[in-house]
């Protein structure tokens, strides 16, 4: 890996012209550096996921873009897009905080694809935290746990009580 000697310290945006800016520590050279990556073709109509794909495939920027968590990249570029659409920074940040918060009652079948991607990225961090994968000392391919049978379970989930959502059956 070429990125192992680089450590991301800060990331941010410059609005004019649209630029992604990071500061990082180059441990090999023992220097603090800043890198500006202009978002040249980025407009208020840009698709965030495509823009990220472009950045990560850009030969000059890829090793720096890789330092940023994907969720952070989505957030930064969405703020940039909001700005280009004329939204105030305050409103945009509040909106992006909402997007990055999981609401257990929100129906994700109904959100736009970009929001869904970001909700999934939030869930992925929990997924990775609890994950047992090949190579981990306690990894087993087949994990079978017999939980209490339906009859033996004492608590109710409270999820069955009628709000009329199951009228067909």
């Amino acid at each position: 890996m070429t990125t192992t000697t680089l450590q991301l310290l800060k990331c941010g945006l410059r609005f004019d012209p649209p630029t992604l800016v990071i500061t990082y520590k180059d441990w090999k050279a023992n220097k603090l550096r800043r890198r500006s990556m202009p978002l040249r073709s980025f407009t208020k109509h840009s698709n965030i996921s495509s823009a990220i794909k472009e950045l990560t495939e850009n030969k000059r920027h890829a090793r720096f873009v890789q330092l940023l968590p994907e969720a952070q990249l989505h957030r930064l570029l969405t703020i940039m897009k909001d700005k280009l659409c004329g939204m105030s920074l305050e409103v945009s940040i509040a909106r992006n905080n909402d997007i990055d918060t999981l609401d257990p009652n929100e129906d994700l079948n109904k959100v736009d694809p970009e929001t869904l991607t970001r909700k999934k990225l939030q869930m992925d961090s929990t997924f990775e935290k609890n994950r047992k994968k090949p190579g981990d000392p306690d990894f087993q391919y087949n994990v079978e746990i017999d939980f209490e049978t339906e009859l033996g379970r004492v608590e109710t989930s409270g999820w069955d009580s009628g709000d009329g959502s199951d009228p067909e059956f």
Partner: protein
Amino acid sequence: MAQVAQPDYDKPDDSGEIRVKVICLGDSAVGKSKLVERFLMDGYKPQQLSTYALTLFNHKTEINGQKVSVDFWDTAGQERFNNMHPSYYHQAHACILVFDTTRKVTYKNLPQWLKELREYRPEIPCLCAANKIDVDTSVTKKTFNFAKKHNMPFYFVSASDGTNVVRLFRDAIKAAMKYKSNPTDIMDEIMQELENFDLDPGNSNGDSSTDKKSKSAIGSPATDDGVVIS
């Protein structure tokens, strides 16, 4: 990803393998893809169906000494009620219905997924999976009546730590094989009849008075394909 045409699961197998199709249904972000990936680990080859935004994963295994080739179908993030392409349900032999134990709304939407499934596949076996139990294992002490109510096997699973994932999928494959060997959907019966039917060249064009549009009318002597389905 390789682009493929939709396989025909009713075609007789040339390799002695049974071919089954297992589909996953449930809300966005309940972990359907993660479950399939956890079951298959590295042994999967995702393929993108050329015509539709659907992904399928082929898996070859052996169940009770019988070779079986399983295609797991995934929605590729296209899940919206009444918006799943009919080809997703077409010829499916079993269904895994998934909800997220951290999000009540995904549980509340199960009846709608089941209803949509049953419009296409009235009889295929369906298994219910409560995913993400790693987030809060106390959910495994609680009752969820949906599965029992609809007479489905129920599994507490975690795609993250692996709990009961293999059990769920192996049971789904077994259910699919059992269904395929003894299908009860009327369309499957017709398809099986067609497969088994010995074409009699002297008879196949015999009744020209048959309305060419009455393909689905069981009992009419011939269809415009020249195949008797009575």
